[in-house]
């Protein structure tokens, strides 16, 4: 599929102003992400590419508020979220951000329905409504006959679909995907990617970290990272 399939992008959703992340190792300061200015508009499909260790995951973790920036400002939906306290950060992660991991990160002791419910539990959604929405999401992703299955009973592609359903549970503003096809074969990877495309078409903002340059063609926006330096294509 080409860019022509995508929705036109709207107002800025994410704004980075001089956002940087430094680490100290053995008294030496290492720039995992050099000061970056970047704007991601609502409805965009952004791919982040770069070699291993270039800082892709650092950027994604900053987007996901899993780490705090050393300097700079991160605005999400017009609100500065880079200096929030832990509770407020959790609330933003819960309500505005959906995460999809390379290794799925499903909770193996829960059924897939319960896995999809997890983010909704933290959003305080009532039990019945929560299960109804989880079922709808799983059905939308073709897993309507597997509600009671455990992740260990599913294939990699099915697991990633559950993870996507989980990411969509609280209807977030942005979906962050960290190499979502990295653990899948090519065919399954393509299926998963088509789900992201579908989500994008429906208006979701997606930020995807990937190694695969082929996926660039599906994006409305792309950045490359090299040694922590972000360059927009």
């Amino acid at each position, binding site marked *: 599929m080409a860019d022509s399939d995508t929705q036109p992008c709207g107002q800025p959703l994410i704004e980075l102003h001089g956002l940087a992340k430094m680490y100290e190792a053995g008294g030496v300061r290492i720039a995992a992400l050099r000061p970056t200015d970047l704007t991601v508009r609502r409805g965009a499909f952004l791919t982040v590419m770069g070699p291993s260790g270039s800082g892709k995951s650092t950027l994604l*973790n900053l987007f*996901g508020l*899993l*780490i705090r920036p050393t300097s700079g400002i991160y605005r999400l939906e017009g609100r500065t979220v880079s200096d929030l306290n*832990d*509770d407020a950060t*959790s*609330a933003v*992660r*819960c*309500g505005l951000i959906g*995460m999809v*991991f390379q290794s799925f*990160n499903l*909770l193996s*002791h*829960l059924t897939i329905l*319960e896995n999809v419910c*997890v*983010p909704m*539990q*933290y*959003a*305080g959604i*009532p*039990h019945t409504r929560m299960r109804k929405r989880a079922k709808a999401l799983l059905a939308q992703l073709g897993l309507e006959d597997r509600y009671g299955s455990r992740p260990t009973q599913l294939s990699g592609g099915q697991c990633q679909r559950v993870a996507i359903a*989980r990411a969509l549970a*609280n209807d977030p503003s942005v979906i962050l995907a960290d190499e979502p096809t990295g653990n899948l074969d090519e065919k399954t990877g393509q299926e998963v990617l088509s789900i992201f495309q579908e989500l994008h078409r429906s208006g979701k903002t997606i930020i995807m970290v990937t190694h695969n340059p082929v996926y660039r063609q599906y994006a409305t926006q792309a950045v490359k990272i090299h040694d922590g330096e972000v360059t927009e294509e």
Partner: protein
Amino acid sequence: MRPVEMVLTVYASLTRHLIRSLLATLGIVLGIAAVVAMLAIGEGGRREAMRQIEAQGVDNIILRSVKPVEGDAQQSTRSFTQRYGITQRDVEHIRNVFENIRLLVPVMDTRRDIFVGQQTTDIEAVATTPEFLEVTRCRLVDRRSRFLKLTDGQVLDPVCVVGIKAARRLFAHLDPFAQTVVIGNVSFRVVGLMESPVGGRLAGQYELDNVICLPIETARSLWGGIRVQMRRGIAEQVDYDFLFLSTKETHAIPGTAGRLRAYLRSAHTQTDYEVQVPYELLQSAQKTQRIFTIVMTSIAAISLLVGGIGIMNIMLANIFERTREIGVRRALGARKRDILFQFLAESVLLTSIGGGLGAGLGIVTAAVAETVSRMGGDAGLKAVVTPESLVVALVVSVITGITFGTHPAWKAAQLDPLTALRHE
């Protein structure tokens, strides 16, 4: 997170490793079981002790004649009569001097065998006064029953009142009121049946339900004022075997008992008496109970400390094993306190389950101990599980869960989300 979701999450986590979860509670189960069982046995023992003490009458002071040891014995070489115990002089002195005494009831053991057919029995015939019924907390059984009256003694009527156990043995299915009892070759007409509702004993000795009472004056007229029994050529003389003193005011009992002991020490040259004060025994039993409670609490504390450390260990191991899960939950929006409460709830649920199972095991253990102790046919132990002990067990379990679960839960909550996510 809503409470219902918290419960479901905790349930799912604990049932993930059911056997491990149950094993983790083992320390708490055994600790609580030991506490509940020992409290039950202790409570049974306490109640039995209280019952026995109260059966003697808390407001009573009981004097008992005791045969002195050989070297102590005062013996008249002329008469070869060994005289000991409570005397008529003692009775008169107490009646005249001790103002706190409301009732004074002398009791003489007739030392006469009671026969059923040709067989002697352990039924005791005692001679006493009409107030005996009141001081021993006995009651009459049949509507036709009456106790001894003053006039019985005045007219030397050979009547008797029979304890229900003695009556069953003596008369079986016959109507006791149409019967007589032969005591020392004299037939006594049965005028009443009595029973001790609490299964009391006469001064802790004879079972009251197995006693026959007859008027003291009648007994004296028949066998003289002196009970004599030949043993190795020596006669024994005892005026009264027991003397029941019922007091007017319970709080004055210790003082009265002290004065009584002082009087007896001065009036008797040998230790041929014993003073039983149920009120003092009651206080002593209560003190013993307090000590028992302290010991129990200490044992419980040690058991629960051990159990609690076990729970903490398991929770720490759980958290290490589930670090990635914590990372995932944090990445999906869990706050630190959601993680804290989740693991704290797991810990509390574990200890509560342990407490519940322990309480059940404790009840069973107490029941088994009671059954085993009664196998020989003796009275044995009595276990009483009080609702309070169960509530205490469960509350202590919850507190243990909170105490020993807080550190692991706090540690889990403090994990950095990203570090936790990357945990292998």
